[in-house]
């Protein structure tokens, strides 16, 4: 797991800050495929395209997009995985 993944809620975090499209979505997909136990993943991103591409990825893959939250210089996008 990367970064602050071991939070109290066992939150899974993908840190894609500073990475340009399509990398945030690629890293999210890669994380999801290598962490079969994850139910909820948070992606941290600065790329403006992530705001559209992460919800679109969720729709194409059948997951639920649980919203984005501005945190200083980046946005945290939450994804509820359907597994």
């Amino acid at each position, binding site marked *: 797991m990367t970064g602050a993944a071991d939070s109290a809620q066992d939150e899974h975090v993908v840190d894609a800050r500073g990475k*340009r499209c399509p990398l945030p979505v690629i890293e999210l997909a890669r994380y999801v495929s290598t962490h079969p136990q994850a139910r909820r993943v948070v992606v941290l991103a600065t790329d403006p395209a992530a705001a559209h591409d992460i919800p679109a990825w969720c729709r194409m893959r059948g997951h639920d997009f649980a919203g984005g939250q501005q945190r200083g210089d980046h946005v945290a996008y939450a994804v509820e995985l359907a597994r």
Partner: protein
Amino acid sequence: MRRRLLDAASGPLHPVAQQTLVAALDAGWADPARLHAEGRRAAALLDRAREVVAAGLGVRPPEVSFLPSGPTALARAVDGVLYAAGRRGARTVASAVEHSAILVPGRARAARSAGADAFAEVPVSRTGAVELDAWAEALTVAGTVAAVLQAANGEVGTRQPLEAARALTQPSGIPLVVDATASLGRDDVPTAWDVLVGDARSWGGPPLGVLVVREGTRWHWRDARADVEHGRADVAPWVPLALAAAEAWQQTAASRQSDAQEAHMLVERIRAAASAVADTEVVGDPVDRLPHVVTFSSLYVDGEALVGALDRQGLAVASGSACTSSTLEPSHVLAAMGTLTHGNVRVTLPLAAVSPDRADDVAALCYALPGTIEAVRGELGVAGL
């Protein structure tokens, strides 16, 4: 290797219009406001060009003005409606997928004014059509004096429900500005509008804005000089451009319907070929669309890399992905539709008269697509994700 033009949004010129343009450099170079023989000849040629365009659009010549570009004409169309509205209000309603020449000044006006909602952007469906319920609601807000909707979107091809949209603006006397810059010459000329805007580039002409204000519409440009372009421009157009635009219109009029039918079928082939590629979404309305425009997005693909890989195979396509724009912002159209913005490819088919081998070019694109997308995914190491 032969270049295959699949991005005709900005040209090139129809070959006969190109000849006309060159000939007009001799015959029509003068300022049409001058009283000498050269000026009078230029004025007569400009009148003739205006008559051709007016007849093509089914309007009267004084309703037509030529402006330096399509985007300039779009911005002017709204300015004239707002200025004529005077103290009745300043609020504008537009769809979220309008041209940036509408959205950027609209947002700037709203930011400067006291009313934060002075510019309403009405959401669109997943296919890009304006949500009519939201459109109706936005129009009811007090102080709304202008409405803007495109005939069809130039990035994804989706047509807008103009008749229904105008049925909602008309009762309140709100003029509807219709942006037909992507559709004129390629699709039926819209009839449900109060102000119509075109760009000669869409029918094989040079860059030239066309602004049509229907008689009786409350429209006035603050800086109008009555003697120039019926009070809708500050400079007369360069006459050779107007002549080339009129020539392109005439040249393409006879074959317009058959050209559109063939383009519609060619786009259908691209839609099928792209849909067959794994994790690739073709966006926009599959049926109620411009005949010659299609866009699709491939998951986990870098749009810039995709355009580059196709370009190296001789295929010229456009993209709405962020990494292909100077601002790093993705296409506001794809964003408003809620579709994938990365890995985007946009095709605007040229007219057959401009590009006689376009069917062959479409076949080449369809053939190249699966392998090219796979190769770009391979470079990123994302195959099988």
